[in-house]
């Protein structure tokens, strides 16, 4: 055989072997890791640095085949409003300030503003309101609504600021970091957390066992607040009643007249002294026998100073520990607290330890600066994923066998060549997928199977062309040359269009569809490659043998050949 042909043969076979090695990973230089648990897998044998494993499918599987959750979170825009009123500039005692705060808070219930959450602060002589923007609402509109509500008490109120707080790139990055910390602490292997500008995060949790719990943990705003309960609701021995109802702690507050007051209102009227932002990331769970389970926290220095001053002058007052608007515990201030403290109580019920652990994770990871909402959620159990994988592989195999048989029966010798080329194509395609580290999703498998059906096409074009050229009575060699040359134009153009639509799909498509698009593009590209190299190689190989002169093997009846 010609030297060139020999080199091509060696090259192709090398590629095929490399692909097989890469995809099935029977030999590795590093440890193989189980994708779900992250543990190293034990090799069958070790030869120095080389590890021999049982062959497996070494391509990363997508969530829809492996099981897991694909979540998309969107940060909700917020509005920041500032109001001034002459009444606020008057000097007042702390009691009066607390009462004023309570009044303002009661003037602005969240639903009247059109959102679910709002934060009110008295800063100097300004009322600052931070509220989630209602969908499709103008910031100014919302600001005016608030202003209208305030006018009843402050007739001369003025709106000084009404801004939409946009999520900046930095915000998104810090949110991503916070969520990464939470997810890592939670112990999910190989999580994927990506930003999607302008305001979205994609979180993928493969192999997660309890998706609901994880979703909660991720999304929780985790705003911890230590609030000062107004004197009228608690002082000294007169504090809230704590009862356990269905595993939850319920706090009951009463006002001076003895009437019961809603906890939420109490929280609302309690100004914030210290928030989670002032914490150092050193929170831990302390669980010692004989003592209640507690979560420790440590304040940063300036907040520590403020807190010290507050606690020193407010002994016997109550401190509400509120997480995301829910009261966790409400201890009385016994003495000055400077830097460290514990949050205890409420963690000694069943499941309490886990709650304490979650709380410490949240405190250490940080509070989210923006509210996050789930806008997309696709969760697949591992069982369903495996089921889908098995079914699709089986279907693909059946299809492949059908195509192989068909080509053999219809095209005879060239059909056999095309079949071998097709099998090599499959291996090379898998190798290509492994090479680009593409995650294989269910649509991706579909694209691979489809590509197998379509890859034959290039061969068909060439062989049909070959038949025609043979009929014109050319010598075998020139017929082959002409066939490949002429067929190439058609093959190129049509496959370019397929690749083009693949790119369009990739650009516009969502996750699994992107997997489909990449697999399709790879499928077409590799089929172009094998059509030109592998098929040609085989035909050249056959030509070197005596079979070549027998046109009947190619499906051409000798009578049809011109000149004979």
């Amino acid at each position, binding site marked *: 055989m010609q030297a060139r042909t020999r080199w091509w043969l060696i090259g192709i076979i090398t590629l095929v072997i490399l692909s097989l090695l890469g995809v099935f990973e029977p030999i590795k230089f590093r440890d193989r890791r189980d994708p779900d648990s992250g543990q190293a897998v034990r090799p069958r044998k070790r030869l120095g640095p080389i590890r021999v494993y049982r062959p497996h499918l070494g391509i990363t599987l997508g969530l829809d085949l492996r099981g897991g959750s694909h979540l998309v979170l969107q940060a909700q825009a917020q509005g920041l409003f500032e109001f001034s009123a002459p009444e606020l500039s008057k000097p007042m005692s702390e009691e009066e300030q607390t009462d004023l705060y309570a009044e303002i808070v009661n003037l602005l219930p969240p639903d009247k503003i059109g959102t679910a959450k709002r934060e009110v602060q008295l800063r100097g002589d300004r009322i600052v309101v931070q509220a989630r923007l209602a969908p499709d609402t103008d910031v100014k509109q919302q600001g005016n609504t608030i202003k209208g509500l305030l006018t009843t008490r402050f007739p001369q109120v003025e709106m000084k600021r009404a801004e939409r707080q946009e999520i900046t790139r930095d915000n998104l990055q810090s949110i991503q970091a916070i969520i990464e910390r939470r997810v890592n602490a939670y112990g999910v292997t190989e999580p994927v957390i990506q930003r999607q500008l302008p305001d979205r995060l994609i979180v993928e949790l493969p192999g997660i066992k309890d998706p609901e719990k994880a979703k909660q943990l991720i999304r929780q705003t985790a705003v911890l607040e230590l609030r000062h309960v107004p004197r009228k609701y608690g002082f000294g021995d007169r504090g809230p009643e704590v009862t356990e109802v269905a595993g939850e702690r319920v706090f009951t507050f009463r006002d001076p007249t003895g009437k019961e007051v809603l906890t939420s209102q109490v929280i609302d009227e309690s100004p914030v002294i210290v928030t989670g932002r002032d914490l150092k990331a050193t929170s831990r769970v302390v669980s010692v026998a004989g003592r209640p389970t507690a979560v420790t926290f440590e304040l940063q220095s300036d907040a520590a100073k403020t807190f010290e001053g507050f606690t020193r002058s407010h002994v016997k007052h109550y401190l509400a520990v509120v997480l995301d608007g829910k009261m966790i515990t409400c201890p009385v201030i016994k003495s000055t607290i400077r830097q460290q403290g514990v949050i205890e109580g409420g963690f000694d019920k069943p499941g309490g330890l886990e709650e304490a652990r979650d709380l410490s994770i949240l405190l250490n990871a940080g509070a989210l600066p923006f509210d996050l909402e789930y806008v997309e959620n696709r969760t697949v159990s591992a069982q369903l994923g495996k089921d889908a994988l098995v079914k*699709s592989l089986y*279907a693909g195999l059946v299809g492949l066998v059908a195509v192989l048989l068909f080509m053999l029966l219809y095209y005879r010798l060239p059909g056999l060549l095309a079949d071998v080329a097709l099998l090599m194509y499959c291996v090379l395609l898998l190798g290509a997928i492994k090479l680009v580290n593409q995650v294989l999703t269910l649509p991706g498998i*579909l694209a691979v199977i489809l590509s197998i059906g379509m890859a034959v096409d290039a061969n068909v074009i060439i062989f*049909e062309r070959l038949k025609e050229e043979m009929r014109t009575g050319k010598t075998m060699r020139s017929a082959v040359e002409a066939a490949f040359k002429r067929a190439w134009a058609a093959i190129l153009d049509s496959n370019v269009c397929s690749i*083009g*639509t693949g790119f369009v*799909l990739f650009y516009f498509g969502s996750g699994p569809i992107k997997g489909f698009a990449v697999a399709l593009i790879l499928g077409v590209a590799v089929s172009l490659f094998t059509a030109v190299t592998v098929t040609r190689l085989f035909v050249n190989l056959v030509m070197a043998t005596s079979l070549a002169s027998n046109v009947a093997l190619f499906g051409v009846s000798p009578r049809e050949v011109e000149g004979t």
Partner: protein
Amino acid sequence: MVDFFRGRKWDLVGLRNLWFAISLLIIIPGLFFWVTQGLNYGIDFTGGGLVTYQFAEPVRAGQETAALARVRGAVDKAGVQGQIQLAGTAARTDQLLVRTRVEPKAGQDADSVLSQQRASMRPALEAAFPGITEVAGEMVSPVVSEELIKNAIWSVVAGCVFILFWIRLRYLTFQWSGTALIALVHDVLVLIGVFAMTRKEVNSPFVAAALTVVGYSVHDTIVIFDRIRENLRLRKGNTFAETANISLLETMPRSVNTVLTTELVLVSLFLFGGVSLRDFAFAMMVGITVGAYSSIFNAAQLLVVLKNREGRKMALKRAPGRPMREVAGRAPVRQPRSLKPVAQAPAQAPSAASEEAEDEEEGAEAAVVQERDAAPGPRRKLKAGRKRKRRF
């Protein structure tokens, strides 16, 4: 199983009106259904939630109605409004799909609503079907579904534009790329029509299938166009219509075989693949068949129509009554126009040569006469105003 198509002297171009009629016959009812009933959009485009359950035991054939009734009862008891559907492979029905609307009130987001729904459905379903497990849950909020719709439309437009310009680039005129595009649009319309009539679910995978079909159908069309282009260059003795017909017949084996191999694979997927693959496979099966049909029976014929019209227009520019020597079509590759005989591989046109091409659609008065090079036989001239009967 040797060449089935060898030597067939079919006139695919001449019967083009028939093919156009068939196409319209398929498209119009489909469009009607689409416009009146709309498509069965999946949650990707409507938003909402979809929960998949797996039965412990598959539902036996014939028991489906009863099973659905029990599911409906359980779902109603849970206070959830939703569509229910049984699913599975062709062999066994062992899954249940529940689609719900999620309408978040103020303060709630779509995901927590769905979680609540799932939590309330679970005990009711477990009571009705012991051993049932929840295997998948999906939620798409309205924000995202709007985007998905927009992206879907844009992707189809982008794909078509790309193809339009790529073919224009390679084939030099918009005539060629335009007709290819029309064939494509035809395919997409038929696909949509079929889905409108069968009420199968239209989701993101459907859009992916549609685009893949677009790429594939163009694949077919290009192979045929390439052959036409080549034949126009090599066989100068025929009219455009004849060349088109020859090319169609020559490429027929390849077109049919490729469709066959792809369909083999798709049928296998349809029969053995899981639920999500089935709808995808179905869309592709329909799309590829239609794509092949439009490539073979519509694309080239449309080109013939356009070329004939162009030929007629050019003929009208000449003074009537003088013999004309226009070739009724132009090869897109620029070549010096020569009237001398061209020595080359003997023409083996399987179809009998007809000397004139006529555009009978509008009862053209001017006939375009073609001069045959290098072939023996009398030249036929036509006096202006006479129509020549078509011969095959």
